[in-house]
């Protein structure tokens, strides 16, 4: 059996666990714990402390694993371990929480430093009324125009599929450009 992996990262409460749950064929193996600090509790009740783990069986020889990183900064020692051997990564950003944009930018830079693999950035919760416009977010996140920045609703399977496909297209494009 061959296996490949992709990493889903992003700040605390960006929707990483939901993103993986939407497409994983197994119940996501989640390492969520109740949140201890008051500030973070106002956003959600439990958070991922080690990783989320989802699986998509491609065929009888190939399996894609999806790893979700813990969003809280104090668990960032897990990031490098999870990034080892990844095919590419997705940075998920909560479009309704501009206070997390700077952290998202930092996470993106950190993962770029770990491995030169393709990545896409996904603006999650675009279905919410208070979601920022993509173009405004691109500026706020200081994303190069060449970086794929996509609208996303992590609870919607089709939306998550689009993000995964865009990352795979980027991986394929990079492989082809590397051959030229």
């Amino acid at each position, binding site marked *: 059996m*061959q*296996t*490949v992996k992709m990493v889903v990262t992003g700040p605390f409460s960006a929707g990483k666990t939901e993103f993986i749950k939407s*497409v994983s064929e197994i119940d996501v193996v989640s390492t969520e714990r109740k949140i201890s600090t008051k500030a973070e509790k106002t956003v959600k009740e439990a958070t991922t402390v080690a990783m989320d783990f989802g699986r*998509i*069986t*491609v*065929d009888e020889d*190939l399996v*894609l694993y999806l790893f979700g990183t813990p969003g809280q900064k104090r668990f960032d020692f897990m990031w490098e371990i999870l990034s*080892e*051997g*990844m*095919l590419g990564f997705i940075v998920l950003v909560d479009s309704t929480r501009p206070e997390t944009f*700077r*952290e998202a*930018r*930092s996470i993106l*830079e*950190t993962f*770029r*430093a*770990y*491995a*030169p*693999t393709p990545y896409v950035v996904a603006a999650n919760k675009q279905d919410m009324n208070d979601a920022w416009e993509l173009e405004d977010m691109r500026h706020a996140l*200081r994303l*190069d125009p060449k970086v794929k920045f996509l609208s996303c609703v992590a609870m919607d*399977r089709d939306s998550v*599929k689009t993000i*995964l*496909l865009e990352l*795979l*297209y980027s*991986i*394929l494009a990079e*492989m*082809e450009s590397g*051959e030229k």
Partner: protein
Amino acid sequence: MALRGNLRDFTITQLLNLINLARKTGTLVVEGPNETAQAFFREGKLAFAQIGREDTSLAHILFKANKLSAGQYKAIQQRGNSVSDKELGLLLINAGYVSQDDILANLQQYSTDVIHRLFTWVEGFFRFDNDQLPPDDRINVRLDLENLIIEGSRQLREWEQLQDEIPSLDMALKFTARPDANMRNVNLNVEEWRVVSYINPKNTIRQIGNAAKMNDLEIRRIVYGLLQAGLVEICRPEGVPIPQPVRVFPTEDKEEQKTLVNRLITRIRSL
């Protein structure tokens, strides 16, 4: 129990606060990743501070502050170590080269700068040696710690923010390809120009900082400004071997790898 520990658990700001409140006398020794710093205190006030093997002689501090000319500094150096800082201070005042205020202000500034640099240290071990005072030949100052602590707290916040923005100094910088970005129309100060002159995908931010003689905080501050202005962007340094990801594909064959990605695409589409 001896006051010792790790900066990860107890920050410089917290240490200064403790020394201030307990009106401690002694020497704080901080062993950072690259060098060791010493700060001497008398009854909770900063008397003197130094980092590593920097020349902390009065003559050098006054020369660096442009209070002594190169000729005067050279003449003092030629006398060797026969004159202590206290004696030299008296000689300089009597000769009319500097005033007592000049000496105290520059020594205070020097120690303050050392403490400001210490605030950027987040890794390292510290210990406080009770009653160990600075050498007798040094001119001690008496700096209240409150202002330093407030400034340190501000700097720590800024440091944390800058670390979020620029997590790795081992990445390089390149000018953005924006056609409307024209460096000539941008008002940069001398320090910023120095950094700009070194910007090249071959140079890491750390190397630029070293070449421009800036500490981590200073180089991060300037790079952050250039990033915010959209003049530069972070890139992977050229010429540095790209870290090979640990076996991304289960096969080494390029065609098989492409087939594998296409299989993944087909599968995801079918979900």
